[in-house]
């Protein structure tokens, strides 16, 4: 019985030692192979960017308003307005060969002073972040609270309808 207790203690100690600490990339560290956001996925994205297959998609709500340009590389898709406690968020996404090249916030909360602050601070930064997040080939984004999530959801709603 005492041996069992000792083993249990050791296992706990091992578990705690396994806490791993790494330096995350920052301004002072050039992006390297450890930067997930900049790394392309090992698996090539499917389906092919050049062959959108809208027929394989189901209906989504609400409908986007794509500017159809099947032969040209660039197209623009406007996402739905996502309501938050502080106001609406709506994005316009420009795609080139199926990849996001630009994101323009058409609507961000500014009806409240606090929201105006969040909008002015968050909008340009979130735009960059969303572009990088797209580079990371993520399906979902976990983070904290409201405006940014509405932005992410709005972006995701657009993406949901642009994937062929």
């Amino acid at each position, binding site marked *: 019985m005492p041996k069992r207790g000792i083993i249990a203690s050791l296992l*706990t100690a091992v*578990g*705690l030692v*396994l*806490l*791993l*600490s*790494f*330096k*995350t*990339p*920052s301004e002072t560290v050039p992006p390297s192979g450890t*930067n*997930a*956001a*900049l790394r392309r996925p090992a*698996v090539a994205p*499917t389906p092919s960017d050049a062959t959108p297959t809208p027929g*394989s*998609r*189901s*209906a*989504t*709500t609400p409908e986007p308003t794509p500017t159809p340009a099947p032969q040209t590389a660039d197209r623009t898709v406007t996402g*739905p307005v*996502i*309501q*938050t*406690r502080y106001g609406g968020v709506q994005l316009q996404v420009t795609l080139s060969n199926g990849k996001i090249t630009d994101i323009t916030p058409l609507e961000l909360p500014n009806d409240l002073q606090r929201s105006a602050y*969040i909008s002015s601070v*968050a909008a340009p*930064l*979130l735009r*960059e*972040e969303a*572009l*990088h*997040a797209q580079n*990371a*080939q*993520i*399906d*979902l*984004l*976990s*983070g*904290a*609270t*409201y*405006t*940014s*999530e*509405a932005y992410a*959801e*709005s972006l*995701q*709603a657009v993406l*949901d*309808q642009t*994937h062929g």
Partner: protein
Amino acid sequence: MADPTNTACEPFRLVRVGQIMGTAISLDLRDSSVTTSAVEDVFAYLRGVDERFSPYRSDSEISRLGRGEMELAECSLDVRQVLALCDHLRLTTGGYFDARAHRSNGLLDPTGVVKGWAVEQAGWMLDAAGAGNFAINAGGDVVVRGRPEVGRRWRVGIRHPGQRDKVATVLEIGDGAVATSGNYERGSHIYQPWTGRPAADLLSLTVTGPSLTYADAYATAAFAMGSDGPAWVARQPGYGAFAVTLDHRAVWTPVAWDIRAG
């Protein structure tokens, strides 16, 4: 109405986004076998939860309970269950998750539990409807099942709290939950129950594990614990943490480390 012969992921995708509980809740369903009425039921359920629990609605059960207009015994089963869960989580987390104290005004506020709990119920509703491959994202609180497409798991990006133009890491998950607490963007909104001061040691802390209810509560509690938080999460069976410290170091515990992308 699940079709038992349809077990493979198909290039099918149904996405719904609802504005509920002060945030956008999106459902990304990859099973064509699930009826749209099952999806409608999920959103109707979430709206019903919001009506009963929202402290921003004066006629919600929580608001009426807070004003003394309603007894606990008169409340719905859901409300009684969540309030019991709040008490349980306060004990489990050594007081670091306290539905009465994590707001600075000390008022009863189960919203820290409700969203994660309700989204977990929604996941079970979809399980019961025969869905095997879906993701729900409720303002950064995530539940996933199965696969987004053949051959890969769901890739959940964790926002980098210090560099907003990046994700800090990516977790690859089949079945499970992810919740993140952080101080970025809105200013501190999590208070240490003992001091009443904002938690300050970490920029963000993400918890992953089987239950979103617990992942969400553990993320809130462990974030309030600060630098002790990740080790505390590591002691909760089945749960793991990824944290970013004030000096931009990433701290992993085994369960989370095991599912990092790449």
